[in-house]
């Protein structure tokens, strides 16, 4: 039993309640306290990442030991893949919390903001650590309900509308997931992910199985905003307060959407080629359409939100390419390379998209507008925002030596080696259009001569915001190191091994 596992969920949950209780008595407590707790979570999650290595550690909630090797308690599972996600959640969460110290000043009800923030983090940590299907659903709902409230936090017209849309689609997604879990339980009489795999290996009814897979895919696909299910994302992510947009786009859709899809399809279902093809084509679709929708936007946060859909397409596409290869049983090293590229891009996207949303928030904080046409000439007035935004834009477009270049390169190389030439060409084209999108953003926001009449009072944002932006900017450069073999072995390889060999996952969880 690893004591770090429950701590990672309990600490933010307790933080949420403490905020509500103490926040009213002691002013200024919530904002600093949040950053301190998030810093603690950063340390705990990096500790678990380094400690876990290629192993898996299991925490059985309530101490319910398995009987005849049939798990009965709720299992919390920490492995290389969830450790990576934990690090992303806590790092972006910490930086968003620091950023919020000055950003949230102009909203009322700071206590509620930080309490909801903690609930969201607790829910995501719970989803990532869960080894039990229904537990995933419960933690997913905790974080999703907190995010509904956070999207509407500004209580303006568009915030409320976005939150309503998000809630209706989110409820439908939850329904699909719940229904899928019910169908799985009906046939297997178990909820433990490893145990379900064990039961499915002994034969199954194919039609039923595919139906369940489609339900799960569409449910979590709605949460992850894969292309046909994306309608809520641009509204929700552009209406939320900027640190929350950074959390939603940088972490949330990954933790409750992409993470769960990849985990369930690699480690729970036996991959079939049709479903793998479907996932790959959905990924390609969101990659291509997302970027073409992004390039025409004039609202800076909407542009970033659409580009999130496109970048998530890369991750889904490379995971899907890996799945196709695994289901055909050929070229396991190329499949591993594709999954590595996907995970690497997941990490990178958290860094640069988080940074871009924080930049957009800084601009909105000073100018009070999100329209690109009303900006201009900010590179002199806000030098740090401009510099970090430039780093992030170059990263997301895949310009060397920034991190986005390496992950896109790995994905494209994997596609070529797997002979999916069409996917490789699409990935290159999308990368070029992404560059165009972000050059547009750079030009209109920072370099054009703007309307000078009122903007002379614009200056660089406050210290905490600058701190977050600079840290993420440095991360954008440093994360490129993960492409080199020694770092890759250390961080990415354990995760890829767990995903590639579902049997190891099962043996380590059930066989204990």
């Amino acid at each position, binding site marked *: 039993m690893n004591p770090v596992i429950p701590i990672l969920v309990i600490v933010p949950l307790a933080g949420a309640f403490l905020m509500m209780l103490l926040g009213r008595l002691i002013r200024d407590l919530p904002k600093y306290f949040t950053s301190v707790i998030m810093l603690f979570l950063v340390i705990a999650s990096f500790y678990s990442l380094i400690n876990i290595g290629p192993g898996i550690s299991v925490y059985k909630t309530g101490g319910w030991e398995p009987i005849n090797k049939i798990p009965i308690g709720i299992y919390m599972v920490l492995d290389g893949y969830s450790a990576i996600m934990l690090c992303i959640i806590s790092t972006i969460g910490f930086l968003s919390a620091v950023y919020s110290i000055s950003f949230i000043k102009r909203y009322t009800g700071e206590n509620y903001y930080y309490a909801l923030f903690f609930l969201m983090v607790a829910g995501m940590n719970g989803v990532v650590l869960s080894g039990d299907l229904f537990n995933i659903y419960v933690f997913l709902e905790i974080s999703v309900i907190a995010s509904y409230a956070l999207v509407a936090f500004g209580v303006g017209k568009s915030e409320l509308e976005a939150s309503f849309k998000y809630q209706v689609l989110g*409820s439908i997604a939850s329904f699909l997931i719940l229904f899928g879990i019910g169908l799985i*339980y009906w046939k297997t009489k178990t909820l433990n992910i490893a145990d379900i795999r064990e039961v499915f290996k002994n034969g199954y009814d194919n039609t039923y199985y595919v139906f369940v897979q489609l339900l799960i895919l569409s449910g979590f696909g709605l949460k992850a905003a894969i292309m046909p299910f994306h309608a809520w994302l641009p509204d929700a992510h552009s209406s939320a307060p900027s640190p929350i947009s950074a959390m939603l786009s940088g972490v949330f859709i990954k933790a409750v959407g992409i993470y769960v899809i990849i985990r369930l399809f690699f480690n729970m279902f036996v991959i079939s080629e049709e479903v793998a093809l479907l996932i790959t084509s959905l990924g390609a679709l969101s990659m291509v359409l997302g970027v073409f929708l992004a390039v025409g936007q004039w609202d800076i946060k909407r542009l970033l939100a659409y580009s999130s859909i496109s970048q998530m397409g890369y991750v889904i596409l490379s995971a899907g390419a890996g799945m196709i290869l695994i289901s055909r049983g050929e070229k396991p090293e190329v499949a591993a390379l594709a999954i590595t590229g996907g995970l690497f891009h997941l990490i990178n996207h958290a860094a640069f998209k988080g940074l871009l949303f924080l930049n957009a928030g800084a601009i909105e904080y000073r100018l009070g507008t999100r329209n690109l046409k009303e900006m201009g000439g900010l590179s002199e007035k806000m030098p740090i925002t401009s510099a970090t935004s430039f780093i992030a834009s170059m990263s997301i477009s895949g310009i060397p030596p920034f991190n986005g270049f390496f992950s896109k390169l790995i994905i494209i190389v994997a596609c070529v080696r797997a002979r999916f030439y069409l996917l490789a060409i699409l990935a290159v084209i999308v990368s070029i259009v992404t560059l165009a999108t972000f050059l547009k953003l750079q030009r209109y926001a920072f370099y054009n001569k703007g309307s000078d009449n009122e903007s002379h009072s614009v200056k660089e944002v406050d210290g905490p915001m600058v701190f977050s932006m600079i840290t993420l900017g440095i991360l954008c450069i440093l994360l490129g190191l993960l492409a080199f073999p020694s770092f890759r072995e250390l961080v990415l390889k354990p995760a890829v091994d767990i995903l590639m060999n579902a049997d190891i996952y099962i043996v380590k969880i059930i066989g204990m």
Partner: protein
Amino acid sequence: MITYLMCFILFLTGLYGVITRRNLLKIAISLSIMEVSAFLFFTLIGYVEGGKAPIVSPAEPNQVYVDPLPQAMVLTAIVIGLATTSLLLAIIIRIYGKYGTFDIREIKNLKG
């Protein structure tokens, strides 16, 4: 079998409401109906023919019991559904305050 069919009809009723209704409150009600159909489905899959409520007593060792786990899950899911519905209603009240209408056609600030 007929109970499963009725459960499915309940789901379709909810889905029809979500898709066709224009009133925010009616959409919220339809979503609840949809959720309830999922809960009902869960209770149904735990049912064992001739089973009793799962309170094990040593007096009747051969008694058949229904599966208690889906019931526990439904209780959790109902609580979650309550939270979702109350938040949705709170948002609807705020929307009414801003727009002065429940009609979804009038609420179109966000486009593109």
